[in-house]
């Protein structure tokens, strides 16, 4: 990624390269951004606003991120394992030592699985 994502609020500014964002989760009217080193940033706006911010700044590169339901935006590069039966989504990659175990609905995970499989076929 060439440009960092700049998240500016009234009192602070966070500048982060998109590839370092593992996922962003919703906490009501707040959003929690989790980075590859498990650093968490809490923002006082909701996930939809966060989504708009990503799409506005990253434009075509926003496709790096996938929105899952109302509560989650994940970085597709970190998708490590999708277990539909256990409703588990594990985010990781070879470069980081942590894994992030998230939960989503079976239908959402089924769709996500289909999405990743389709991309594989297009290669």
């Amino acid at each position, binding site marked *: 990624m060439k440009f960092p994502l700049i998240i500016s609020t009234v009192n602070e500014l966070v500048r982060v390269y998109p590839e370092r964002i593992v996922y962003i989760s919703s906490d009501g009217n707040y959003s929690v951004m989790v980075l590859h080193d498990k650093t968490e940033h809490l923002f006082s706006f909701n996930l939809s606003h966060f989504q708009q911010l*990503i*799409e506005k700044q990253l434009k075509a590169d*926003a496709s790096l991120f*996938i*929105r*899952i*339901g*109302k*509560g989650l935006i994940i970085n597709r590069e970190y998708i490590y394992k999708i277990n539909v039966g256990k409703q588990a989504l594990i985010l990781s990659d070879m470069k980081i030592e942590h894994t992030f175990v998230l939960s989503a609905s079976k239908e959402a995970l089924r*769709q996500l699985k289909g999405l990743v499989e389709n991309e594989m076929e297009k290669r």
Partner: protein
Amino acid sequence: MRRDEEDEVQVLGTAPKNGGRKALWRLIAIATGVLLIVLCVIYLSVNKEEVTSESLPEIPASIQQENPLPADSLPEVRAQADSINDVVLTIFALKNLKAELAMQMPEQTDTSVYFVLQAADIRKDNKQIVGDFVLRGKQLSRGKRKTGYCAIIQGNITLGNTINDDMKAYSIANGCDFFRQYPLVMNGEIQENRLKGKAIRRALAQQNQDFYIIETQNRESMYDFSEALCDMGFTNALYLVGGSSYAWWREDAATVNELGVYNQNPLPNTNYLVFRAMKIN
């Protein structure tokens, strides 16, 4: 959280994956709504003169009025005298007329008007209408000391006796008329009222599906009036402003008869129950 939103997966920068399906459902819902509205409009236009209990909130079935008059019959007020229990009554049968409330007395030159008389009482202290009063859906007064009511929906009258607001709410929601008065007879039973003394009494009464204006020729107690109406066979009767209050009715296009005493300066908020011809001649 809604299930479909919970299940939605979207690559950022693109439209939601199932957005088309959602839009389709939205379209189907809108189309269904429009279809229902169209069907309602068609149904109402076909049954325009039959607003009956099916379309109304919970009210006793026995006091519903359907339009009982054949559409081709002429509007008419037919007066006759009768007596029962020594109570002498003038009975005005209302034929082929539709009702409405008005805040001003119509001109006698308006030949579509066949009967005009005062509906709800006015308080002498604050000059406000006594009890709930709704004019074309607009509530002008509140109160439930008088539990009887007359709701006028598309010209048709419904009489009842309840403190609940279903009919009033319906009248407000649908731009109809509604007022409260003392119930005299409901479902064929005399209703007790605390109003004392004797006076010329008037009532709006229902027998089967026909409506009548009744006036006593002499000063009567409320109870004697109620009893007379009940014994005459009226199933429902609601008190109207009596005494010497001014009213008039049309015998024919050229003949107007007056009741009570004309007052050049009626109290503010004086309101009228007006019966007009269903078809303008």
